[in-house]
């Protein structure tokens, strides 16, 4: 009763933020639905533990955990230690759902595809910084990594995205040239 009121007051305002993170982590709507539902049940269960901290990073921590648990059950390969070498093959990775494939056909969202193709550890940090607008400290707390690691992963994510953007420009120029 009391818990539900607190949930409505503290968590519901961040439902979209939680959903955005879930979508970018799971990379498709159906799985993100499941992750968000599970996260909400956990948030309700542990709402008592939310005291004197920001509700948004608190809830996003739960969403992230819910995703990792879901991922361990459904896509264990994705959680394999990832040093970023996967990026070379990530573009044609089977992990990219039909939705991303559809996006890829749309040139304007080529960047969205590039983000979706980032290895999980870089993707989550980038999404938390640029879309959720969280601070290094909050990201460090949510992802349970030191701030230095947040910074290095973020730098790597940006470098990868800039490179993929550059490749697209070159690709477009080549297509122009052969025309």
């Amino acid at each position, binding site marked *: *009763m009391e818990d539900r009121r607190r949930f409505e007051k503290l968590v519901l305002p961040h439902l979209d933020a939680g959903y955005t993170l879930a979508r970018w982590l799971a990379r498709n709507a159906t799985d993100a*639905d499941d992750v968000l539902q599970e996260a909400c049940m956990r948030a309700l269960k542990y709402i008592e533990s939310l005291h004197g901290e920001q509700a948004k990073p608190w809830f996003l921590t739960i969403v992230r955990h819910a995703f990792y648990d879901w991922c361990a059950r459904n896509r264990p390969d994705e959680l394999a230690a990832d040093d970023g070498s996967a990026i070379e093959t990530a573009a044609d990775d089977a992990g990219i759902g039909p939705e991303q494939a559809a996006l890829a056909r749309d040139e304007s969202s080529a960047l969205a595809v590039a*983000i979706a193709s980032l290895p999980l550890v870089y993707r989550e940090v980038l999404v938390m910084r640029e879309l959720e607008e969280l601070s290094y400290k909050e990201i460090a707390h949510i992802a349970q990594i030191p701030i230095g690691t947040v910074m290095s992963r973020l730098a790597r994510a940006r470098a990868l*995205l*800039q490179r993929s953007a550059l490749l697209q420009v070159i690709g477009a120029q080549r297509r122009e040239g052969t025309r």
Partner: protein
Amino acid sequence: MTCTQSKTLVAAHADGELDVLRGYAFSRHLRTCAECAAEHRGILALRARVRAQAPRYTVPDQLRARVLASVEGARDTRRPSPERGERWRWATAGAAAGVLATLLVFAGGTTIVDRRAREGLAVEAVAAHVRAQLDDRLIAIASSDQHTVKPWLSARLDYSPPVQDLPDAGFPLAGGRLDHLAGQPVAVLVYHYRLHTVDVFVRPAIGDVALSQRTLRGFNVVTETGSGMQWVAVSDASADVLGGLVERLAAGARAP
């Protein structure tokens, strides 16, 4: 400020992570260092593209409704607060259950609804059993005498639960208490079976639900209907043992 250090600082600056003093010093540096300035512009440009092209999603109405329904429908696994808001809580739970039931009927048929309802009942019964054990209030009226337990329960309920002591079957009656199930006060008979404690929730039956068994969080839950009563046994004892008990209780209660 050397530019090898600045690589990280450029990002920290672009991310608004530098304090006022260092931020000020760094923006001066950007004016004189073409390399850092280009890096800085690159990050800002990328951010602008990310925010323009990578969607921030909005929870679809359907999903929001599902989340709200499951939040409303969630039974507290912790101790309830029956002293206030109880009616409202059950009213909303009822509404949520109604929504859920409608969806399920759409999805598949009444068998699913029955199964779901039983599942909810089992979850509640286990929660109540665990709560009572944790709070050490399993037994409010301790007696193996059915003529003591029955009036105690009847006086506190709007029905009179059949009470039997079954020592010969291995189930000596230890006592009873009141608890809550599906929003209603319910009689609980507490039996011992060897070293196990068995809770049997007894309430007027709604329809004739056949014997069913479930395992939740390591507890077995066995449900039976008999003589207008529904019997829900919860224990860490085996399902077979519980089945034997509820069948006996349901059958015994049929006899005059």
